[in-house]
């Protein structure tokens, strides 16, 4: 059997249960694939093949005994390098954590292990997930499998590129302002940003705590449903997780979407949207209409304020979350170097943080420290919090009328490596369509919708109501059953 690395979870799971293949065989196929394409892609920061091989052997036994742990048993996964893995280096793509080995597993890592998933390793991200291109990494940029001169998007660029390049069957990423959806769009993967609190953040290195979400990047909406069944749910170790009883997400697959109400928020289709992306989106929407959905243009007026609001809150929280990286208890530290050069405690702090944080992390610390300072707090943080409530309310109202909303994920396809790196503001604006969803707290998925004339993928964003992951999966799955964009594979040169 050839090219097992190309399988979806759904396909692999069926074959594993039928005894046609083994987890070890999938794994070896994937490892071979990784070794082949990594020089071009650079997704992985740390590979854990030995752990994976041991896990696959255990999985093989379970299938022989007819006792697989779940639909993910034996399925190889790549983890964004912000998920703490006990005994395995977790860097957040930062020099400050370059040798950090956690003493505990993140809740989702534990859940995946208990489900029998196979840990391939840790994949690249922008440092502390701050960025939209995976260029802000202490371990070099990841390349887009569709055009290796371009970025894979970010911050979960390693995860999306690994999925697109068939270097794993699925990956986990994090999304604070678009970090799952935008790279999924740039790489033609299916990525879900969940409802805030649906998946535990425990053990996941924080960027902006009130926006951070954990979600899957996979090859189809059907696979996303399978993964979500394993990772979603309340966690006593994360007080912000939801308490509601959750559905079986695979029950939303294979449904007819006739009569579903789809809103098209016009603010997402205005200035700055590339004509090609606009055209691809319009075609995708027509497709959904042809499947029986009712489409209507509508308005989300607060959208214009989202970027400003988002960056104030995100950087405020980030400046606080990065305070713990002082090189006293763990991480990069001048205490491990020539101690005679350390003048005093303050000098140690300055040296450690100056030498080990990258530019975007430093920018976050400066911006966030400024917006939280006494005298500025009301004008920035407090005002932004008010706008946040406004955005939230607007989405709540919208979902009284519509099942889902559809927008482009990004106004443009993947850009060139280096193109926006020196212009942080234009990098921030790359998130213009994904950012408003995080303050709203609702779920949204990036679904492959087509390709530009030069062959770059374009994603559509399907936004659902609070805890409406099922609704999104329903629409996305119907779309994918009617289209083939998500099946197309890049040729890696």
């Amino acid at each position: 059997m050839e090219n097992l690395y190309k399988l979806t979870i759904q396909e692999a799971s069926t074959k594993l249960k039928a005894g046609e293949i083994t987890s070890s065989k999938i794994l070896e196929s994937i490892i071979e694939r990784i070794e082949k394409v990594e020089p071009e892609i650079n997704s992985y920061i740390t590979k854990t093949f030995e752990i994976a091989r041991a896990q696959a052997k255990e999985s093989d036994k379970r299938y022989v005994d007819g006792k697989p742990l779940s639909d993910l048993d034996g399925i190889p996964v790549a983890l964004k390098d912000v998920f703490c893995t006990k005994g395995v280096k977790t860097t957040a793509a930062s020099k400050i954590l370059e040798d950090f080995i956690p003493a505990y597993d993140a809740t989702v890592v534990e859940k995946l292990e208990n489900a029998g998933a196979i840990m391939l390793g840790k994949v690249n991200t922008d440092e502390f997930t701050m960025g939209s291109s995976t260029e802000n990494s202490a371990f070099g940029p990841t390349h887009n499998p569709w055009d290796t001169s371009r970025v894979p998007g970010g911050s979960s660029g390693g995860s999306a590129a690994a999925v697109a390049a068939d270097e794993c069957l699925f990956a986990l990423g994090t999304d604070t302002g678009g970090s799952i959806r935008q790279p999924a769009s740039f790489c033609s993967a299916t990525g879900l940003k969940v409802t805030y609190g649906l998946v535990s953040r425990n053990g996941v290195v924080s960027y902006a705590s009130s926006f951070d979400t954990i979600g899957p990047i996979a090859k189809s909406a059907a696979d996303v449903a399978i993964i979500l069944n394993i990772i979603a749910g309340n966690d006593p170790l994360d007080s912000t997780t939801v308490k509601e009883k959750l559905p079986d997400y695979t029950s939303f697959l294979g449904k007819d979407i006739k009569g579903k109400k789809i809103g098209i928020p016009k603010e997402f289709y205005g200035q700055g949207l590339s004509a090609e992306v606009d055209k691809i989106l319009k075609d995708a929407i027509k497709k959904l209409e042809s499947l029986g959905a009712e489409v209507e243009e509508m308005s989300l007026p607060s959208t214009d304020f989202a970027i400003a609001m988002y960056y104030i809150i995100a950087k405020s929280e980030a400046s606080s979350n990065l305070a713990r990286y002082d090189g006293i208890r763990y991480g990069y530290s001048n205490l491990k170097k020539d101690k005679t050069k350390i003048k005093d405690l303050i000098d140690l702090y300055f040296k450690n943080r100056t030498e080990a944080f990258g530019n975007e992390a430093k920018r976050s610390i400066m911006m966030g420290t400024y917006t939280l300072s006494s005298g500025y707090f009301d004008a920035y943080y407090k005002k932004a919090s008010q706008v946040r409530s406004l955005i939230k309310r607007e989405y709540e109202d919208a979902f009284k009328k519509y099942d889902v909303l559809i927008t482009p994920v990004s106004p443009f396809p993947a850009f060139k490596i280096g193109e926006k790196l020196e212009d942080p503001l234009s990098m921030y604006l790359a998130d213009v369509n994904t950012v408003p969803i995080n303050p709203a707290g609702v779920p949204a998925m990036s679904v492959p919708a087509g390709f530009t004339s030069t062959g770059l993928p374009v994603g559509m964003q399907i936004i659902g109501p609070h805890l409406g992951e099922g609704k999104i999966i329903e629409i996305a799955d119907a779309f994918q059953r009617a289209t083939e964009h998500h099946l197309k594979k890049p040729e890696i040169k």
Partner: protein
Amino acid sequence: MSDFKTTIGLEIHCQLKTKSKMFCSCDNNAENAEPNSLVCPVCLAMPGTLPVANRSAIEMTIMTGLALGCDIPSESKFDRKHYFYPDLPKGYQISQYDKPFCKGGEVEVSYIRTANETNSEQRIETRKIRLNRIHLEEDAGKLTHPAGKDYSLVDLNRAGTPLMEIVTEPDITSPAEARQFMEELQLALKYLKVSDADMEKGHVRCDANISIQKDGKSSPIIEIKNLNSFKFVEQALAFEEKRLTADFENWPEKMGKITRGFDSNKGITFEQRRKEEAADYRYFPEPDIPPISFSETEINDLRLKIKELPKQKQKKFIEAGIRVDVAEKLVRQPHLAEYLETSTQLKHDLAVFISEEVTRAIAEHQILFEEYQTKVPVTKIADLLNLVAEGIISKTVAKEIFYEMIVTGEVPADIIKKKGLEQVSDTGELESVINQIVKENPDLVEKYRSGKIQVVGFFVGKIMQSTSGKANPQVLNKLLKEKLDGHSA
């Protein structure tokens, strides 16, 4: 001096005695623990860790608030307070900024007053010290700086211990009153069983703010940090009161807060930093912990959990006929008050015996109160005092029996029998002893006859000695007087 007015406000930090720490499941009892043995990824601020608020610490805070008459807002939240220091692993402390669990409230400071010189009747006078708020936060770790070394050591066992901060209004008018406030507060915390409130062990620490006013002018506000005993609170404030008063001419026109430390060895304060250097803590709402709300029912359930408070107990004791000062003394020692209450009846003589003898006996025998209590349940003391009242034993003998009970745990009747300690009221037996003593001391008899009647005391002592204290004092006095007077007649 009298035209100077002193204004004092206190901030008291109190460690709550919860099982686990404030935001993780580490053991909260760090006493005698190896440094850094009670830590986990959460209190070490490892990447990715999240705080989970300790419900029981929140309940203790609200109970304290209810006991001190605070308002309990229906919604409250935690905030982050930022500063960099190696004892603060996250680089911020989780505290409460603008929505504390408790607002307002008051503590009554009481004084026992005697009516006047001729009338010794006692009454209690009270003053109310208003509280501003009570909030909950986490403690930091501990740094030690080994002498002569070029490094400091960090112990994070204490990092994350629940810390309740009680802030008063500037209602306190003297250093002595500040001390009294602290004592009242400590007692309330002990009664609520929310803290061991042992200042020596650092369970309770106090920052004191003081300023002096005169002729519409005010001194700068001085904050004295980290006072860890009642005595130091009073001493430091008294020193500062005196210093500021003497410095009246030099009070600046405009001046922010000045922080001073207290050197308990020298009994003086010293300047630490001025306001302009003060940190900007960049408070903002803790995003990892959703706002916390309490329903009316939940608050009422907590109210029901509050047992008797010191004031109520004191009132009960006084109404039972126990003298005000004795009641006060017992209420201040909750274990003794509870011991008294295990008796079927609250009696004054029993209360006096407990407040005077029990503490002394325990100290002399060097045993724990718990051990004492199993050997000597309060019923045995009641029995003992009944025997005194009935004239079967003297007070002196009662004390001897009491000490024997502590050692053997026997009941008084058995000890009396065993040691033959019944009081001698038999006149024949006593007369022969008196005759003997009088005969042996003719010179003192002479003195008595010449009018120096104070020598009676010597005779009583001698007689008590030779009867091992068993002589009934009334009978003895009567017989002795007859004997001495009889000779003179």
